[in-house]
């Protein structure tokens, strides 16, 4: 696995809020075509890392390299255009939009025609619009939401909203997909379905960085992982080696060398 090229690299990335270092000099690597887990107790700085990668925050220090680009000071929409897409820990769908419209919005970068051509209703733009619609319907089906296209997204269950968010994130055909706790609030079967989907996406060439609290899912679905605590790197490697790491045991589970007591932390 270590011969696969690097897609994302964080070099001593730090983010301070006032005096607090939410992320304090984190370095880690995500390799192309892998499912990489980002783990750590609540408040460890995982969501902040995702916000830094997507440009919603800018690092206080350090640099983030993605696919040959330095993301330094780039605004979020330019970073998205490079091929990074994400979901949110607290689902953030657009209120007032149907499931289909949410995903269609996610297809914006791949719309294929200018805003003006779309406004003027030029034939090529109409065709592109229909293609984007068809693609959105396929993406909804892919996350198990076929037949919910016209439903106002905010009327759906939390789990369903999470799946629409994943479909929306896939609309831009990203190279890197960032999932912030995609299985939070889901039951076992639903979580397994998400894990399955993540594997399918990886096999179709996507790279995935996911924050996940369920250790079972991490060992089952992640190829590699990064463990953080207090904004710093604690361990890195295969899920098994991370979980067995005594430091991780101490920080994450409060006791050393007791791998059997591993519980999903949420």
């Amino acid at each position, binding site marked *: 696995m270590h011969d696969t090229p690097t897609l994302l690299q964080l070099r001593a990335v730090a983010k301070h809020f006032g005096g607090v270092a939410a992320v304090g000099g984190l370095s880690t690597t995500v390799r192309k075509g892998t499912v990489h887990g980002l783990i750590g107790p609540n408040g460890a700085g995982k969501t902040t890392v995702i916000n830094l990668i997507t440009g919603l925050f800018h690092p206080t220090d350090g640099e983030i390299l993605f696919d040959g680009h330095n993301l330094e000071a780039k605004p979020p929409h330019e970073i998205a255009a490079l091929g990074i897409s994400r979901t949110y820990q607290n689902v953030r769908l657009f209120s007032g939009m149907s499931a289909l419209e949410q995903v269609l919005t996610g297809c914006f970068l791949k719309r294929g025609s200018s805003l003006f051509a779309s406004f*003027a209703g030029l034939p090529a733009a109409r065709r592109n619009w229909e293609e984007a619609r068809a693609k959105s319907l396929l993406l909804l089906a892919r996350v198990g939401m076929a*037949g919910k296209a016209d439903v106002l997204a905010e009327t759906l269950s939390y789990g369903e909203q999470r799946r629409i968010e994943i479909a929306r994130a896939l609309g831009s055909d990203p190279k890197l997909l960032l999932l912030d706790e995609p299985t939070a609030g889901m039951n076992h079967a639903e979580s397994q379905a998400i894990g399955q989907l993540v594997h399918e996406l990886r096999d179709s060439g996507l790279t995935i960085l996911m924050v996940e609290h369920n250790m079972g899912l991490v060992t089952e679905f992640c190829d590699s992982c990064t463990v953080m605590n207090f904004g710093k790197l604690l361990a890195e490697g295969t899920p098994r080696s991370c979980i067995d790491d005594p430091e991780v045991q101490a920080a994450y589970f409060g006791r050393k060398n007791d791998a059997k007591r591993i519980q999903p932390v949420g």
Partner: protein
Amino acid sequence: MEAILDFWAAYSATIAFGLVNSFIALSCYAVLSAGVLSFTTVMFAAVGGFVAAQMIGMFALPPLVAFLFAGVAGGVAAAVIAVIFLRLETHWMALASLALVLITRVVVLNTPTLTGGVQGMLVPVRVSVLELFLALAVTAFVFYRMHNSWYGLVSRAVREDPSVASTMGISTYRVQFIAFLISGAVGGIGGAALATTLQFISADTYFLALAFTMIASTVLGGSFHWFGPIVGAFVFTALPTTMQAVLPEIQDVAKGVVLLVIMILLPRGLVDPRVLKLRLSRSPKTAEQPDA
């Protein structure tokens, strides 16, 4: 017979002002639907109004041609304003736009060669109700096309959650800049429509009362669909005449109460596409299909 004629006179004036206020409300909606609360419409209307009045005075243009110039002038003014305003935080933008309303008045009063200053300006041409209707129909068609295009979709996304929209590759600056251009053009046309309807304009024509008409019509009609501001403008315009006819003694109070009641009962306005979508959501067709 005389009574009927009197009634018609009042009635057609209400329709004319309903049409004029529709432009003003649509100008407000253009930016509000992209997440910007701004009173800059008043300034765009002033620019359009005085440009149209000058053009008509100098070249005896027909009203609809003057509207075109007013729209372009309003759009240019909006481009300048957008470059400055889009640097500000949202709530500061609203405040700055109110300041701009005051500045507009001072500028109008102090440039008598362009605006007639304290004397104001006579507009020698009157626009007909039919012409106003045609101009509004074209404008509404433009809004209809926008609503059903990528621009409409992403402006709704920017309004609901600008940072989420930005992580989907949408430049909020670009969307809101376009919104300002549209607001400027439509506001300019609205100002020209007002000038050619009143046939006299001054600094007071484009002042706080217009700001109030703009925001009340948009909120009343609903700011989630382009048809809302038009409905809102007509209701808001007809309200004083209606109240005068029904409750002449307390018409001002009654008008305020009716506005409040509508806003409390329908906080999203008279026209709300969400209601339709909710109905679609509950239709059995969508509920019964199994997940794929």
